[in-house]
């Protein structure tokens, strides 16, 4: 869209002639004059990449269509496949991150957490029972508890994350989160990570999160014994 050929603006040119070409001769420049602009570059690939049934896209469709359209108004005819957001995701999307605010805490190896809001878009309660991602061996659903010493610790939640109809699950440091176990590789800030959330009826949906370095630390993991004590 904004990467097209330069647009011509139509207007009378008198303003450009308001300049007086009088007394002074044009000083030659020290820079070589040879490298003239070869016309504007024509970059490719500025389409938004869309993914089927990605919650992120739903946000774009719903919330940002106006802005996207506005950006288009003064451009020359659209080239190629750039169609802007489409109806993908749409009807089947049952969950999304309200402000597109899912993020993963950056980590070199081992485990790390995912935070952000997951909004239930349906009229029924939703229960997330499992999750997976290509970047880690497994994903656990974690909650924070106070252990016997009154310290915050995290442990796997029983059942899953239940999100009532019309409500949102807020995952934040010190609270519920997704836990990536056994990272396959480093997660550097700015990388996009995909997650598939599985619901209790066996269906699944994919969401995307960006990696950030917030300077924070994960809570200690409740040891199995400890967790058992808590749970029994």
């Amino acid at each position: 869209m904004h990467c097209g050929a330069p647009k011509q603006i139509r207007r009378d040119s008198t303003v450009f002639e308001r300049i007086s070409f009088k007394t002074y001769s044009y000083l030659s420049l020290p820079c070589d004059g040879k490298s003239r602009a070869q016309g504007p570059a024509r970059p490719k690939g500025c389409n938004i990449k869309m993914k089927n049934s990605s919650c992120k896209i739903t946000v774009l469709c719903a919330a940002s269509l106006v802005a996207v359209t506005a950006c288009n108004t003064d451009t020359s005819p659209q080239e190629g496949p750039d169609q802007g957001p489409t109806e993908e995701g749409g009807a089947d999307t049952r969950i999304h991150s309200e402000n597109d605010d899912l993020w993963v805490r950056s980590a070199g190896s081992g485990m790390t957490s995912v935070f952000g809001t997951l909004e239930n878009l349906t009229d029924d309660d939703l229960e997330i029972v499992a999750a997976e991602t290509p970047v880690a061996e497994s994903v656990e659903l974690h909650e924070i508890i106070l252990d016997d010493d009154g310290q915050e610790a995290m442990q796997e939640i029983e059942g899953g994350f239940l999100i009532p109809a019309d409500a949102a699950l807020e995952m934040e440091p010190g609270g519920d989160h997704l836990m990536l176990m056994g990272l396959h590789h480093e997660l550097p800030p700015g990388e996009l990570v995909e997650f598939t959330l599985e619901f209790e009826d066996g269906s699944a949906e994919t969401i995307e999160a960006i990696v950030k370095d917030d300077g924070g630390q994960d809570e200690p993991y409740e040891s199995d014994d400890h967790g058992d004590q808590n749970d029994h």
Partner: protein
Amino acid sequence: MGRTNRTRATITVIRMTTDPERSESNFDSKAHRDLSRRGLLLGAGGTGLAATAAAAFGFGRSTAPAIDPREPVHGTSTIDFYGNRQAGIDTPAQAHAVLLALDLDRNDDPDAARRLLRLLSDDAARLTQGRPALADTEPELAETPARLTVTFGFGPSLVRMLSPTSVPHWLRDLPHFDIDRLESDLCGGDLLLQICGDDPVSVAHARRILLKDARGYGAPRWIQDGFRSSRGARPRGETMRNLFGQVDETVQPRTSDGSREFVVWGNPPPDSTSTVRPWITDGTSLVVRLISMDMDGWDELSRRGKESSIGRDLRVGAPLTGVHETDEPDFEETSDMGFPVIEEFAHIRRAHPHAVEEQILRRSYNYDRPPKDTDRISDTGQLFLSYQADVVEQFLPIQQRLAEGDRLNEWTTPIGSAVFAIPPGCRPGGYIGDCLT
């Protein structure tokens, strides 16, 4: 049980949060009503008393509150981040600016550069709209963006990394000028983040967030901040003043007559023979010059002397051959003695274009800092920012002429210098620089 011990409720009812935003104007007009009612009551019953008191104590209007409580609050006003063009250039200049020039750790890792740009664009998109950044540790500071903008500029190595064939020929250090006293740690940079806003607090917050997110990818090379008159201090649209007291930025390419479109964005009118073109559609360039101003030396000049050095009067900024600020200077006019009214080396004569190409958009900020040397009382100057489609065709001839002869050079010294390519804006889901492949 773990469940009962959970440290915080994690489920919120989200319908509450989708309330329409409390609008600034509603808020204000209510405040207005309450206030004017109070004002009326006071006016009716209290005038006599107030007048007596004022007379008795010999003060006039000082009983009025120092700040008019009816003044509109503008902290929530926003400038769009997404769009064909980046904000912060055509945007009427905000009161505060800070420029962060970063050196990237690696200039051979385009994937890392893209990750960084995605992160920073995401931060900018949120903060400029009054929303906290992801993982924002001070989310409350994001609530009053006050026309916050973040404008990205790319140095040569960054453009080369993203798109080797797109590097504009003018994207390199300016040639050396005899007037220059450049300090290398005030020059250059791989990535520029120009943060502007009317509230220094949200500017500081954005600065912190952006630098934090850049941490894994690079380090600040130089950071420069500056200010103009605060919003509301002077009538809207009034030309700014620099710290020499001059009306500065009078002659500017305007949107209204299309010259801005040509000068900054490189779209010449159809019948123009100009060869100026943008390096990329909806992209432009930024030249940063950090120019120190010798306030003590300037003091020694008479007012007349100050005015003739620039070729304009100080009171309204009119050319010495005119009356109003916007009068065209007449460079031919001579005095009775036969001397040119606007001196031969007056700043505006030397800066005045000799060809249509020689026009720039200036959007500069004043700075005023504690002195480094103990024998001075200030370190004052201008963070001079110039936007143009083509540095060589537009900026350079002007700078060249000024360097070769400009009365102002006696009191001004360039100490920092940098050139950046400004890429186009981006769309939701994209990031600044995603057009470069």
